[in-house]
């Protein structure tokens, strides 16, 4: 804990470190995708940081923040074995944008980057083996994207055709729908609204339905419309 990781990074890269934060003691730095590999290599190589212990690479999907910000956060977690400190490095990439692979820096990034590709569809430039890892090759789409419906299955083999294999009554085929508290497809189309104001607010529908929304809708039309009664 001798070195303040973020300070060291800022000293080295200056403005290339776009943001830093230390929420609940987790040091985090955000860089641009173009600096991603360089900063990562520095983390590993620097004699004060020595982030030699690879922890994880993952991603987060924020479909709603586009186009102000790129859609995905890609997150790298590393740790130093000798110094016993950790850092979280983040970058933001657009859908379809490729990111430099970190496999040359930490070989452990191999599978986790494959998983990010599998789940989010973010490709890594220079990765030795960019295949799906958890899902099968025939799978279309990227399930951890918010707009992939959770229950959309893509069976590899046909199901048997017999009675009583579906959910039995009174459980309908859509059972589980309300528990799917946020219907992301609907939300991205702007139509997922909860009746309960409190729950609406918790789903990010700020004041959408409470009585305090006094937005006028529809406006009187000019009188000269033909055929008007």
């Amino acid at each position, binding site marked *: 804990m001798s070195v303040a990781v973020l300070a060291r990074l800022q000293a080295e890269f200056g403005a290339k470190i776009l943001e830093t934060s230390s929420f609940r003691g987790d040091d985090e730095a955000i860089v641009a995708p173009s600096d991603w590999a360089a900063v990562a290599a520095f983390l590993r190589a620097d004699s004060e940081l020595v982030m030699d212990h690879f922890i994880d690479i993952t991603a987060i999907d924020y479909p709603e923040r586009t186009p102000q910000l790129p859609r995905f956060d890609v997150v790298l977690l590393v740790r130093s074995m000798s110094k016993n400190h950790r850092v979280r490095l983040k970058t933001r990439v657009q859908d379809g944008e490729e990111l430099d692979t970190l496999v040359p820096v930490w070989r452990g990034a191999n599978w986790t980057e494959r998983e990010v590709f599998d789940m989010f569809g973010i490709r890594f430039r220079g990765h030795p083996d960019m295949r799906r890892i958890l899902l099968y090759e025939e799978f279309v789409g990227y399930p951890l994207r918010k707009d992939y419906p959770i229950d959309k299955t893509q069976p590899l083999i046909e199901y048997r055709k017999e009675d009583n294999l579906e959910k039995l009554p009174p459980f309908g085929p859509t059972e589980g729908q309300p528990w799917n508290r946020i219907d992301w497809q609907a939300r991205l189309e702007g139509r997922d609204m909860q009746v309960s104001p409190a729950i609406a607010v918790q789903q990010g529908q700020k004041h959408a339905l409470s009585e305090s929304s006094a937005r006028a809708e529809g406006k009187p*039309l000019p009188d000269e*419309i033909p055929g008007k009664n």
Partner: protein
Amino acid sequence: MPTFKLNDKEIPFEPGETIIRAAWKQGIEIPHYCWHPGLSVAANCRMCLVEVKSQRPMMLPILKWDAEKQDYVEDTKPKLAPACQQAAAEGMEVSSTSDQVKQAQASVQEFLLLNHPVDCPICDQAGECKLQDYWLDHQKTLKRKQTEPVHKVKGVRFGPTIVYDGERCVMCTRCIRFNDEIVGDPVLDMRERGNTNEIVLSPGRQLDHKYSLMNEHVCPVGALTSRDFRFKARVWFLKAQTSVCSGCATGCNMFVDYDPRDQHVYRLRPRDNEAVNKHWMCDDGMLSYHRYHQERIVTGRVRTNGHLADVKIDVAMREAAALLATVEKSKIGVVLSAQHSSEDNFVLAKLAREKFGTDKLYLAALPGWDGDKILRHNDNNPNRAGATLAAGGPLRTVKDLLADVASGAVEGVIALGWASAEDAVALAPLSRAKVVVSLSSNEGALPNTATVVLPVAVHVEMSGTFVNAKGMAQPFKKAIQAPPGVKSAWETTLDLARAMGLGIDFAKLDDVRRAMPANTPAASNPGAPV
């Protein structure tokens, strides 16, 4: 515009506005029970107390518990003002989150819950109850009071639609003010004081005017509940969709509350729109959702041997096309509907004019009801204006159609909708036509006289536009799925045209809207965000 500061945020206001209203306009909610934007100010719940910071605040002497000394010590605190009554002033600094205010909010909330029964499991308000929300936001503690709460009346039937529970009531008097001020029917009042305070009916009266269901919606807690909605669904399961009421030509804005699991609409609620309905709706409008699920036509029907038999939709479609083909195209009369959206009517009218080459267009509409000055329009058809507009010319009545049929000028009829001013007896002459194809969502006189019935979706099952009596085009969105196989009327019309070998190509609703006359308002006014 002058501004004041609320929690360090600049809030513009119009002179004379209260703090709470100015904040509300900005989308900032100061906790309140008794204040309602559409009602007068009562300032009796004390939930909206805020601290108005001024140079010389009025300090009130209080006794404060000192934990160290284990005794009460004298102290002072600034006097708080109710935000619902305090007019905003230029440069005023207001805090609704200071310690003093927080304490006040917690205390008020605790007082309001002192005698509240343990009813959440059986209360329909649970999930949208202000007591619950404000408890979480402002009180956050368990009960300190150990004694038995005061008991009051429960489950009192106030009228055909509303039940009152005295124990849950927080005496905000919103309901009293609503009936007084908006409806002008002072049917409710309050009696007694303090613990025994309760809402009562005027002697000899019932809460039976045409806006009684609104009482449920103005009640911030579960004291007034609707008998119609009661015990049917839990609100946290329900999703809402913005829509427009189909009850009358006013076109009240509303929410459709439906359960996505069973695709069932459970209630309709008013949606704020200052230009149309402000915050209100009438009972008939709110209950009109029953029509979405009752007396629905979900199969095709074909008349055989004098009575209508259920068949598959595509069978009925083919039958309709075949029958219509036997009729000379120019002798087909097309009945538009004032109950259906502009898009439905437009596509049908387009079919008639362009493909049949007929101008025999008629309009079926309900005969009207008892309107009033508040919301209810005399015309109980939501889209008479829109249908006329979509037809692109004046429309004749169903009576004219009957005459045309009698004269032989019309041999085939395509009729949209179930609603018509005429009853079954009056429509009987229609059967003289060779073929009557009815596109209808519900049972009614029109489909009953038809040769072929094709089911169509009701308006919450599709997106569309209503044009109200004021000429405002108001779009509404699809809330629930139509029954399997059933499509909206304009899609069904397209299918019918296709079955007859006539092509009208619209792939989606936007195509239809674009094709509608440029001055047809729907296309130019897609629904504003809610």
